[in-house]
């Protein structure tokens, strides 16, 4: 007999309060149930004695077992309260049967507790006084926001007033923010968390005419072949992979410079891994397209009936489509004019063996036999290396296969985060100071700021500095701009206002940062606005298959923190704007609904039905639970009609209704690769997400299971490179480049440190690191010169480079797991 502490988790009793939510993180957005009941009480083990409704111990795959990380105790309305946040085991959509990722599975650990890892939430607004953030009142904070905003707009115009904000953090918050910034203030100085400018992330695909989020997860399961590029689904969209892609048995053609678990799985199960060198996607997709056309394997019926002719393209109202759109003949002529698009040429250009390129073309088309159902799915590995060309090339390949609008046949994004970007007003393109060949384009807000034109920036919910390219150069410039004029040395509201106005008038920059936790950008802020977030109010949001669901409120924001929408409302009203006096998020949701009409997120019919039935929009949505509704929605005889997939009528987002091919300029890509790629002594430093972490680690830096797995940032290094550099796993590395381009296109330097993780997951000459690990600014070695992508103003985040040097070692050699992470199970043939 041994005496020790047995592990346990309390079970929710039958009368526990139940709420519905979805995961906070990846775009799959698994459905979850939240159980709340007083601490010190546990339900029984019989099904009728607990709210989960199963006997304990429960069987494998029950989807109803709360692990210890699914449970915590919070203070709620002054009462110590048990919380279990558990995947919805009854779900028939998304995470069928209660499966989940490690990210969402531990959502309970996200909740605020006065002690423990989440206790460093911002609890009050703060003001930087002599370099230190001090608590201030909301009254003072809102006054400062309103007064400074008026001063900047009145003295320097609305282009000097900027907002840098998440694009997805619930419809209600984005609507409220954009109503103020784009609607009332009308500034073009507004950009999302991930890019220097508003606008389309996948313009090449959009110019084909195909919606980026037109497919359904069911299509992944229905498909015979999944062509997945620049996105690692097992690692980053886990449940979509295990429940929909892998479970459907499709052969996977996986495109990635890294041989990840998904790559190994694909190869073990009759698929392919096309291990291209960074920056060569355009050549690869174009070579596959050329091989298809050379053999007559394209979907001739689709091309004949649904691809626009040159005459039709010339009638298009969108200049990009006229300029870059291509008919089938034009597209073919281009493909056959480039030596790098032959099988051998593409092997030289991309590093992918010619035989594999040929095999991909055969698998995707059936090589003249029965045509398989093929899906083409991609994400940031594609559009954050060469934005326009890569998305044009993969979109054109999809069009060539007729991969759209039909079960198991589609082309689109995998998604990076969930979809909550319902804006209240359009972007004021006519005010933007930037253009492309005479056509107005969105403002590059980072360039604008670095040039000294932005005098006030309101940052909302993002580690802004870390998330932009050439991050160290940007940080230095921001430090200069925020140190102009007098230092704030007082907590007297009038003095503070005078001093900050003096800075603005001296050409400097004032920053307000609305956040839940301190991050690497908040030290630059003059004003901190303490925000509430997921679970701290009721919100709505779509996932990557346009599934709209409710995210219930679980608890109040901690301390004096306030939900984002309410902060926007308070500032707007203090500035004198009408129409911001919402009582709750439902009022915003209902106000936003007509703005969604006609788009992929159209939920106007839901609110219309709710009003007809005399209920609130949020409440009607809540009745659909974790299943939600797939938008766009329509009403027929009082019933809501969902849309499983877009383009089912084979009508596309063009004036003619036909799709088209799009010119993907490989010569421009090659030129850019020469500028951005590694120079002598450097290797590629590509970056992305990792299974147990999410974005800037705002939650996962405070989550034990994630921090134990990844105690510091890592750099994957191939064993051959490791041997050449004298490096082994756990060594501390310097990664440095003196050839980074800053926001103005000037050459600068960048460096960061990380622990070596020696693995054949990367090929020689290519390293991989996490993209936003705190204390390890990997975007220091990615460039930020949008003149290289002047059409879409996206950074080439995936094309970092640097010289790798061992600068010491760490205790991680003993304590961190360096086990291989790409060991996939054998296929059916063993």
């Amino acid at each position, binding site marked *: 007999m041994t005496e020790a502490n047995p592990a346990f988790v309390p079970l929710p009793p039958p009368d526990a309060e139940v709420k519905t939510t979805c995961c906070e993180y990846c775009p799959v957005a698994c459905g979850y149930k939240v159980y709340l009941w007083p601490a010190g009480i546990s339900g029984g083990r019989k099904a009728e004695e607990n709210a989960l409704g199963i006997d304990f111990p429960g069987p494998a*795959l029950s989807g109803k077992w709360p*692990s210890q990380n699914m449970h915590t105790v919070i203070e709620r309305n002054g009462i110590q309260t048990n919380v279990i946040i558990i995947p919805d085991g009854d779900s028939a959509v998304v995470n069928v049967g209660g499966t989940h990722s490690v990210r969402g599975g531990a959502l309970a650990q996200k909740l605020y507790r006065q002690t423990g890892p989440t206790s460093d939430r911002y609890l009050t607004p703060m003001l930087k006084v002599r370099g230190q953030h001090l608590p201030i009142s909301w009254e003072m904070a809102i006054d400062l926001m309103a007064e400074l905003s008026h001063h900047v707009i009145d003295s320097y115009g609305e282009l000097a007033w900027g907002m840098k904000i998440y694009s997805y953090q619930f419809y209600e918050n984005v609507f409220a923010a954009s109503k103020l910034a784009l609607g009332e203030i009308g500034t073009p100085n507004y950009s999302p968390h991930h890019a220097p400018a508003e606008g389309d992330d996948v313009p090449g695909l959009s110019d084909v005419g195909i919606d980026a989020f037109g497919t359904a997860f069911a299509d992944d399961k229905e498909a015979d072949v999944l062509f997945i590029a620049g996105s690692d689904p097992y690692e980053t969209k886990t449940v979509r992979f295990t429940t929909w892609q892998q479970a459907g048995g499709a052969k996977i053609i996986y495109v990635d410079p890294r041989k990840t678990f998904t790559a190994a799985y694909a190869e073990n199960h009759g698929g392919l891994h096309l291990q291209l060198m960074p920056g060569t996607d355009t050549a690869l997709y174009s070579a596959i397209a050329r091989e298809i056309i050379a053999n007559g394997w394209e979907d001739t019926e689709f091309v004949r009936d649904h691809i626009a002719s040159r005459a039709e393209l010339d009638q298009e109202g969108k200049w990009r489509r006229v300029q870059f759109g291509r008919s089938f003949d034009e597209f073919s002529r281009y493909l056959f004019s480039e030596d790098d698009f032959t099988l051998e040429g593409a092997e030289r250009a991309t590093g992918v063996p010619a035989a594999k390129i040929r095999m991909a073309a055969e698998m995707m088309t059936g090589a003249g036999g029965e045509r398989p159902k093929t899906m083409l799915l991609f994400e940031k590995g594609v559009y954050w290396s060469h934005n326009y060309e890569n998305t044009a090339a993969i979109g054109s390949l999809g069009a060539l296969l007729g991969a759209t609008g039909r079960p198991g046949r589609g082309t689109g994004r995998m998604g990076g985060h969930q979809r909550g970007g319902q804006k209240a007003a359009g972007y004021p393109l006519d005010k933007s100071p930037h253009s492309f060949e005479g056509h107005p384009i969105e403002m590059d807000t980072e360039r604008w700021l670095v040039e000294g034109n932005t005098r006030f920036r309101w940052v909302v919910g993002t580690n802004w500095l870390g998330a932009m390219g050439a991050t160290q150069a940007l940080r230095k410039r921001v430090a200069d701009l925020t140190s102009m004029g007098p230092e704030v040395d007082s907590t007297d509201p009038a003095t503070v206002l005078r001093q900050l106005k003096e800075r603005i008038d001296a050409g400097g920059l004032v920053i307000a940062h609305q956040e839940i936790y301190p991050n690497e950008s908040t030290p630059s802020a003059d004003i901190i606005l303490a925000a509430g977030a997921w679970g701290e109010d009721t919100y709505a949001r779509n996932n990557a298959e346009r599934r709209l669901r409710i995210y219930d409120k679980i608890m109040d924001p901690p301390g004096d923190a306030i939900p984002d929408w309410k902060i926007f409302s308070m500032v707007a009203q203090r500035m004198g704007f009408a129409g911001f006096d919402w009582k709750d998020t439902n009022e915003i949701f209902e106000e936003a609904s007509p703005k969604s009409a006609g788009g992929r997120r159209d939920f106007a019919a839901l609110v219309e039905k709710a009003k007809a039935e005399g209920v609130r929009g949020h409440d009607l949505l809540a009745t659909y639970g974790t299943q939600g509704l797939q938008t766009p929605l329509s009403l027929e005889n009082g019933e809501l009609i969902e849309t499983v997939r877009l383009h089912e009528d084979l009508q596309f987002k063009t004036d003619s209704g036909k799709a088209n091919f799009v010119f993907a300029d490989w010569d421009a890509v090659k030129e850019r690769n020469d500028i951005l790629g590694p120079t002598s002594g450097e290797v590629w430093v590509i970056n992305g997400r990792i299974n147990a972490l999410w974005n800037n680690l705002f939650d996962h830096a405070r989550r034990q299971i994630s921090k134990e797995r990844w105690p510091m940032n890592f750099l994957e290094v191939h064993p051959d490179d490791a041997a050449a550099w004298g490096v082994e796993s756990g060594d501390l590395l310097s990664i440095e480049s003196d050839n980074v381009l800053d926001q103005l296109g000037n050459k600068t330097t960048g460096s960061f440190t990380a622990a070596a993780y020696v693995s054949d997951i990367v090929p020689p000459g290519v390293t991989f690191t996490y993209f936003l690990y705190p204390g390890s600014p990997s975007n220091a070695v990615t460039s930020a010169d949008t003149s290289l992508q002047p059409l879409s103003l996206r950074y080439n985040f995936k094309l970092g480079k640097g010289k790798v040097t061992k600068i010491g070692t760490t205790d991680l050699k003993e304590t961190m797991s360096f086990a291989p992470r790409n060991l996939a199970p054998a296929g059916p043939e063993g």
Partner: protein
Amino acid sequence: MFLGGATGAVVAMGVLVPIGLASRETASGGQTAAIVGFFPRLKVAGLSELEEGIPVLFDYPQVGQSSMLVKMGEPVIGGVGPDGDIVAFSRLCTHMGCAISEYQHEYKILGPCPCHYSTFDLVHGGMVTLGQATQDLPQLLLSVDDDAVYADGVFRLVYGFDNTLQGGELVGERV
């Protein structure tokens, strides 16, 4: 590395549980409480019978709590025996409960799980190296007496159960 929520060393039957192992229970297993239970003692294998890299399967501490003991060939966290290399873990995946049979001695990992491919590093206390499990694998407290290796306790919650020691039938007497 293993700080946070540690309850300190636990003295059990004269066996001092290593602080690292004890605190791992809370470090990656969420909340714990000061409940003291009594684990059965189970002889798992004879020390001299163990072959490096060849797992021994058994249930512990309750029937159906399938576990695996293995001699790793190098000293590891929580390891016992003359070389400090004998460890045991639950082999019920802490993601959704599928039994993991694939021990890869070359890498000293258990997995990938046949259901959703979670993989656990047995050198590092059952850490999830890849995959979806929200807890590290429950690690067993072992001891060696003469030639016998005994299971004396388990850290972290075993899949399917709400309490490591309750809900089912113990594999041995709590004397």
